């Protein structure tokens, strides 16, 4: 299905990532956004609020994030594409409902413009420390999809892709961007509507009497209907059977809950998108995502100039994690360097998938800023030189850490 020309602001814009995401939401055919103001994601919500009437869409600012996400799940069941926009603390408040959304197999999109944490942290500055949270933040077992764009153009493109994935796999899709990308202004080219491919809601067409809301099709994914269309839906957040009726029997738990994780795990290959560069014969591979992948470019270029065989693996899709890819690369490379704006989250996943075959060097950053590219370069040099296998993650000591903790430094407001 093509996008509706009414919703697409075709042309060349010079806008920041938040605004680009706002335009992307409309272009993706989303008709309902509920949000609550939180720095640094508000501009995306504001943008959508401004353009919503154009697409006959509704923006509502709810009383809190708990309300926003529940309204989004409700709207999705009413049959429209819906999303919410937030940042760290708001994201945390949504955790209960994200699990609920996963349980109900609700297609919806969540844009998280990450900031420095924990708690209130640094609202106006960047972070990438919600990555594990996006996967594990709600109670119980579930799987979600998470994408990490690195430029305003990608925020536009991947917002659309996120909606498509959500509809395809009937699950919450997170766009895990960060403040740097959200507040970075660049040229964004919005193509004409006929060049934007959208995934329509997969609706059930049969008679009401036979409809089973959680009976999967061949690819593990059940079809949906719209609320109020006469299907006499029974949808429960409890563990349920194909009819949606709650079950208390443990047998059903392993059958029906299992599908929630399997529908993602078994479709991994179709979902995962990676960007690879020179990884085939690399000594060292930099694994990065979001803004860190742009910062890493400097370090990589410098290392290449010095003759290090360096590969670059950018995780566009962070969850589900590309286990097999890392396992394969670990067999041929010496080490992975993982720069991320946290004290190790995705690095643990890389370490897990290395199976001791390659070293893992983490270049951490506390947040509120991006890496010094020299740190990444130094880490690459270290990784290339190191001959023995090191158990555990090597945490590279950054210039920032040395500055702050080693001698005479005074904090200035």
């Amino acid at each position, binding site marked *: 299905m093509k996008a509706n020309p009414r919703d697409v602001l075709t042309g*060349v814009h*010079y806008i*920041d990532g938040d605004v680009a995401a706002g335009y992307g939401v409309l272009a993706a055919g989303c008709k309902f956004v509920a949000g609550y103001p939180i*720095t640094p994601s508000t501009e995306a919500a504001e943008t959508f609020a401004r353009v919503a009437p154009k697409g006959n869409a509704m923006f509502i600012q709810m009383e809190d994030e708990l309300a926003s996400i529940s309204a989004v799940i409700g709207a999705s069941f009413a049959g429209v594409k819906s999303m919410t926009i937030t940042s760290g603390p708001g994201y945390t408040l949504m955790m209960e409902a994200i699990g609920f959304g996963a349980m109900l197999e609700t297609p919806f999109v969540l844009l998280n413009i990450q900031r420095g944490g924990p708690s209130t942290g640094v*609202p*106006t*500055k960047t972070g990438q420390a919600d990555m594990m949270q996006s996967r594990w933040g709600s109670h119980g077992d579930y799987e979600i999809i998470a994408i990490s764009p690195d430029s305003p153009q990608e925020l536009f493109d991947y917002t659309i892709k996120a909606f498509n994935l959500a509809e395809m796999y009937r699950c919450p899709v997170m766009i895990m961007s960060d403040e*740097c990308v959200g*507040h*970075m*202004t*660049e*040229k964004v080219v919005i193509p004409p509507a006929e060049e934007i491919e959208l995934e329509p809601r997969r609706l059930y067409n049969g008679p009401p009497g036979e409809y089973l809301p959680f009976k999967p099709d061949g690819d593990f994914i059940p079809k949906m209907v719209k609320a109020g269309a006469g299907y006499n839906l029974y949808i429960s957040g409890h563990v349920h059977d194909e009819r949606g009726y709650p079950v208390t029997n443990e047998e059903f738990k392993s059958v029906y809950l299992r599908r929630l994780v399997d529908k993602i795990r078994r479709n991994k290959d179709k979902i995962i998108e990676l960007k690879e560069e020179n990884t085939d014969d690399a000594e060292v591979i930099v694994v990065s995502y979001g803004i860190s992948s*742009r*910062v890493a*470019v*400097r370090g990589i270029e410098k290392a290449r100039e010095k003759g290090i065989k360096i590969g670059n693996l950018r995780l566009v899709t962070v969850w589900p994690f590309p286990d097999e890819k890392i396992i394969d690369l670990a067999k041929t490379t010496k080490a992975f360097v993982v720069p991320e704006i946290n004290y190790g989250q995705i690095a643990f996943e890389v370490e897990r998938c290395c199976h001791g075959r390659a070293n893992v060097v983490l270049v951490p950053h506390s947040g509120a800023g*991006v890496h010094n*590219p020299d740190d990444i370069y130094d880490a690459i040099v270290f990784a290339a030189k190191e001959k023995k296998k090191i158990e555990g993650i090597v945490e590279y000591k950054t210039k920032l850490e040395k500055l702050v903790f080693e001698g005479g430094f005074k904090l200035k407001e």
Partner: protein
Amino acid sequence: MAEIRFAGYGGQGIIKSGIIAGKAASIYDNKFSTMSQSFGPEARGGACSSQLVVSESKVLYPYVTKSDVLVAMSQEGYNKFESELSEEGILLIDEDLVKHKPPRGKIKIYSIPTTRFAEQLGRKIVSNVVMLGFFTAVTNIVSYEAMKKALPGSVPEKALDLNMKAFEKGYEYGKQKVKIK
């Protein structure tokens, strides 16, 4: 490639300056540009800066490492970012608000009373556009025509005339300054 830093405090339109110059370079001069911003929680009065990287090819690394131009509209901004300015760089300051040290290396300093000019034009809020005009005249990184095209749509429509005037004022002043130098 040129790396430009605008620094001042919230409320001066520091980020707006970056956007207008970036838009001019990217859309009307057909170069590539990336603008990123850094600000505190305060809407007004907090330290605030924007970074603009203008390049002939796609901007991969989006931040300023050694700035070619530093536009300082506050003392705090000057103090913080002066050391980042390259030895051959250009420093632009609001002369009423910033007192500078003797220049390092081959740094060229151009000063202009933007806030005063803006107040004379009627609204203090256009001081950033005065500075943009000055910036255009002095640095030649972004063309005059592109800047003029970038202004409409970037400032409120009602205030476009005022902004155009402010831009011209800064531009003229800049041209004179360059001549004198």
